[in-house]
């Protein structure tokens, strides 16, 4: 087994790690980079708990090799908040009690963020299908969908404000 040296950008920071060439990015992020917010629920791409963005695309990090991250931009749940300012999705998940055990929450947040960036005003059905790759066993998804709806509304409000400010300038 030969190891690989990987240079990557994680949540905006340059990160380097070494890993065996057959190790998943999930294992590398958890065990070598220390980002344990990325969870393993299945290791086979069926539960979404390990969701991250790879060059902006939503992927399961269990279905990516660590070596494939070389030269790529990675986003994880740890990068959602801006300093002490939580992302609207994080705020709304807490406010709407959209988590019980919380193990699926990091994956849901990352997936929902990708959804709202692509589609700022999704319908309930669009939310449900976009999040179908993220399993939650505690909530029955009800409060999760409501939290994403509320976060979308909040983000649209913030974006409007930003746009207005820009105009004024």
């Amino acid at each position, binding site marked *: *087994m*030969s190891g*690989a040296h990987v240079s990557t950008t994680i949540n905006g920071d340059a990160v380097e790690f070494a890993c*065996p*060439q*057959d190790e*998943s990015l999930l294992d590398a992020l958890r065990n070598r980079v220390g980002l344990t917010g990325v969870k393993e629920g299945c*290791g*086979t*791409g*069926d539960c*979404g708990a390990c*969701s991250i963005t*790879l060059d902006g*695309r*939503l*992927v*399961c990090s*269990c*279905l*990516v*090799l660590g*070596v*494939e991250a070389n030269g790529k931009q990675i986003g994880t749940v740890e990068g959602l908040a801006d300093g002490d300012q939580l992302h609207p999705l994080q705020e709304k998940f807490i406010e709407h009690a959209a988590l019980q055990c919380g193990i699926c929450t990091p994956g849901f947040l990352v*997936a929902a963020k*990708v*959804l709202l960036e692509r589609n700022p005003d999704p319908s309930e059905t669009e939310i449900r*299908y*976009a999040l*179908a*790759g*993220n399993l939650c066993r505690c909530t029955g998804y009800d409060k999760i969908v409501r939290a994403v709806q509320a976060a979308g509304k909040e983000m649209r409000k913030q974006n409007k404000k930003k746009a207005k400010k820009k105009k004024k300038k």
Partner: protein
Amino acid sequence: MRYEAPTTSKAAAELLAAEKGKAYVLAGGTDLLVRMKSGMLEPDLLVDIKQIAKMREISKTASGFRIGAAVPGVEIGEHKALGKAWPGVVEAAQLIGSDQVQGRCTIVGNLCNASPAADTVPALIAAGAKAAIVGPKGRRTLAVEKVVTGPGQTALAKAEIIEYISLPKRAPKSGDAYLRFIPRTEMDIAVVGAGVNLTLARGIIKSARVSLGAVAPTALLVADAAKAIIGSKLDDEALDKLAAACSAACKPINDKRGTIEYRTRVAGVLARRAALIAFERAGGKR
């Protein structure tokens, strides 16, 4: 295990040819990594083809479309012209897995995985798609229905790689559709899949291709089913014949995903529904 990420198809084929142990092509990895995790596969060499520029693009050519072997599902879904020309193929590609899986999975991977239940394969067969293959002995082209020879088996020789899938130029007054049945709304493997592609002339079906998935060791091209609707306006009688031909063509198994009876019956149901969608997309009026 060794990981290589060559930048040309030729280099990729050479790496595969030179490997004495078990070598696999890594595109999206959504099947490969699962098998590695379970211990079913223990590769000595993985050749990642995502650094090969040509394999990363969808291009429109004079003769139709080329979808590179490393293009992920999400990019297929975002390609407007492709979606307009081949909505059935695109919807089949979009059915694979979740948004997360779409970020990685490829239609060539779906094909080469050689599962009888692959979603894109019946749609590609119905569309008359061809696989462009590169290997140590040069290039060749193979109809998609000839690529898979059995469960987990393909017609590819050692070190041969599919570079892209080509879809023919869309004829006027034509349309395609793919439907599959799964027990949930998402995240399952097809219990039955049905792809239909047809062309109209003066409102009547002039030509058609019907393909079924998950009802036999490989995806089927069902000539009798096509015959059943050619020359019709897709009236109820033609649809009944189509459904019957599809059910008759099935050679399914009982497994954890469905029964023989169920698959046989639902193959007809889905083919009928897919035909109606394809007919409407072609501008047909019943």
